[in-house]
């Protein structure tokens, strides 16, 4: 069984990396100039927020739930980042309107201009995620419906904060996202850091094993004395944390906020987790695979533009990649069963 060099098991775990490699080779074959520092920067920039959102979705999928609100949550964080986090309460369009009409003075006190307000709101966002985990556990709720409701809540909050696209990302996030380290393009370093950090956190720590076990066999984890409530809360809080990083990195790239900026992230993040070898139930997930999956989905757009196919087909290409990889996985499983 284990003698063969390419056992189905190994093949399955290599599938995400192989599909990314295949896509990269195709891109370089079409456009050799893409194989450069600038090329990588341009092609993979947007992979950073998508990868972080995918890790967030992966945390939720680990405990057999699904987050349909991650896209609007990332948009909410982006809106907070472009307003509260850069100029405090004074940066809100609402407050600016009041200043313009003379209701509020032009010089605001320190309390209303400190970015601490933004930090507080972002922390509250993570607390809300943790509470959702607790609520879903306590009342045994279907996560699809709860997060569906939350997607409206985040969208509503974003629109209240930023009724029309605008605002400005804090300088430090912008300079971080436009870093130009020597030799290796920033997106690649960032992706590696995200993958390694999530891998160590969830795959290498002892509590990480409990977290994954709670997805595989919750009763066994409960019998062993671990609190399933704490597990759910931890995983949802982690999702909120990674979702926050996704929103901040996104606003660093786009420099301004928009409530609708990341609506597609919900479906993209689910696709990224599955593409990266994660299973829908059972706590079988792969953080490194998820980052690779997110990069593959991002590169699909570049691939099409090098093929001179109109961007209309970008979503279609992402769907096609997902289906092809899932088909390959089904084939591998089939081969495994026949042995």
């Amino acid at each position, binding site marked *: 069984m284990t003698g063969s060099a390419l056992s189905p098991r190994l093949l399955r775990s290599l599938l995400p990396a192989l599909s990314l490699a295949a896509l990269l080779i195709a891109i370089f074959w079409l456009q050799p100039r893409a194989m450069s520092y600038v090329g990588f920067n341009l092609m993979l920039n947007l992979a950073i927020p998508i990868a972080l959102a995918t890790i967030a979705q992966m945390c939720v999928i680990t405990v057999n739930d699904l987050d349909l609100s991650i896209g609007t949550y990332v948009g909410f964080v982006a809106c907070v980042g472009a307003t509260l986090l850069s100029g405090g309460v004074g940066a809100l369009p609402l407050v600016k309107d009041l200043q313009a009409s003379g209701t509020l003075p032009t010089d605001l006190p320190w309390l209303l201009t400190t970015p601490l307000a933004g930090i507080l709101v972002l922390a509250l966002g993570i607390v809300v995620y943790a509470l959702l985990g607790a609520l879903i556990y306590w009342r045994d709720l279907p996560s*699809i419906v709860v997060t569906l*409701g939350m997607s409206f*809540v985040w969208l509503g909050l974003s629109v209240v904060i930023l009724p029309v696209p605008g605002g400005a990302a804090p300088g430090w996030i912008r300079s971080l996202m436009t870093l130009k380290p020597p030799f290796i393009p920033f997106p690649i370093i960032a992706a590696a850091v995200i993958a390694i950090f999530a891998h160590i956190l969830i795959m290498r720590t002892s509590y990480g094993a409990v977290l994954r076990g709670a997805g595989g066999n919750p009763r066994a984890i409960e019998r062993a004395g671990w609190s399933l409530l704490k597990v759910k809360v931890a995983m949802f809080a982690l999702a909120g944390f990674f979702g926050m990083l996704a929103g901040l990195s996104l606003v660093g790239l786009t420099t301004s906020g928009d409530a609708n900026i990341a609506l597609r992230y919900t479906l993209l993040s689910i696709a990224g987790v599955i593409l990266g070898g994660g299973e829908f139930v059972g706590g079988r997930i792969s953080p490194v695979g998820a980052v690779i999956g997110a990069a593959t989905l991002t590169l699909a757009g570049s691939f099409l533009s090098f093929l001179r196919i109109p961007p209309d087909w*970008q979503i*279609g290409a992402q*769907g096609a990649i997902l289906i092809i990889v899932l088909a390959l996985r089904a084939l591998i499983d089939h081969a495994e069963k026949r042995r």
Partner: protein
Amino acid sequence: MSDAASPPSPLRRLMARPWLWAYVAAFAVFIVTILFTGGRSGGEVATAAFTFATFSVIVGIGQMFVVTLGPGNVDLSIPATITLAGAVATKIMDTQDGMILVGLLVALACGAAVGIFNYGLIILLRIPPIIATLSSSFLVQSTAIAYGRGIRIKPPPALADFTTSQVFGMPVLAICVILLAAVMEVVLRRTLYGRWVTAIGQNIRAARLAGVPVGRTRFAAYMMSAVFAGLCGYLLSGFSGGSSLSMGEEYLLTSIALVVIGGSSVAGGNSNVPGLWGAALFLFLVVTMLNTYGFGAGLRYLATGAIIIAVIVAASRRRTAR
């Protein structure tokens, strides 16, 4: 569930209906809304509610049959199917009244094609339905974008007239869809097929052992959901003066919300059609009420989200030791 000693009175039986509360809530919101206007424009509000609820009920019925199949069964491809069917149908009809029937058949065929594709993915790739319908929605959406090219073609005048016509303030389309809902309630409760769907949702192994053709039943449910989405796209493009690329967007969340608020079990195996209408009217009336009271878009979204979460929490029970 009910005490077997004495048969419950008709009133008690009505109170036990899970869909009743959606109607009670819809009516309460309606009253609060027309209180603001002092009773004027109550008729218009009701007409608008029935008009817009119609479209969400059409897709809600399909989604409900899919959800009834049990945990993990959701059709995420509904918005893309609506958009594709609307785009293809308006282009083929090309504003000509004579092509209305052809357009309808084409829209239904689009839905059927998506349904076959969805179920093919579920079976061939052995993947959860959520993933299957998610990946197919990417492809379908892209096809709709590439096919429609964002050009808005007007619907045939007769179709536009039909979808916007009213009798005594009641939209004709709403009457048709109330009849459709009645038929589907009978299908769910009284036909063998409906009982099969419910049985699969309650326990797929038991259903299989009892001889329920599980594969065919699931296939028909996914097919129905996609065909209803096609129908919705066709009618919606007639109603709103042509198809647009974002016309399906809101119906993913709405279709799931209707099933939940209407009192069907999200875990499957226990559904009802009447609740869909109550929930659709309720959701639209809440938005109208907030509009009337001058709330902005942000607060309307917030309220919608809060209601969905409140309903699912209220319908749930505390986790019990199992």
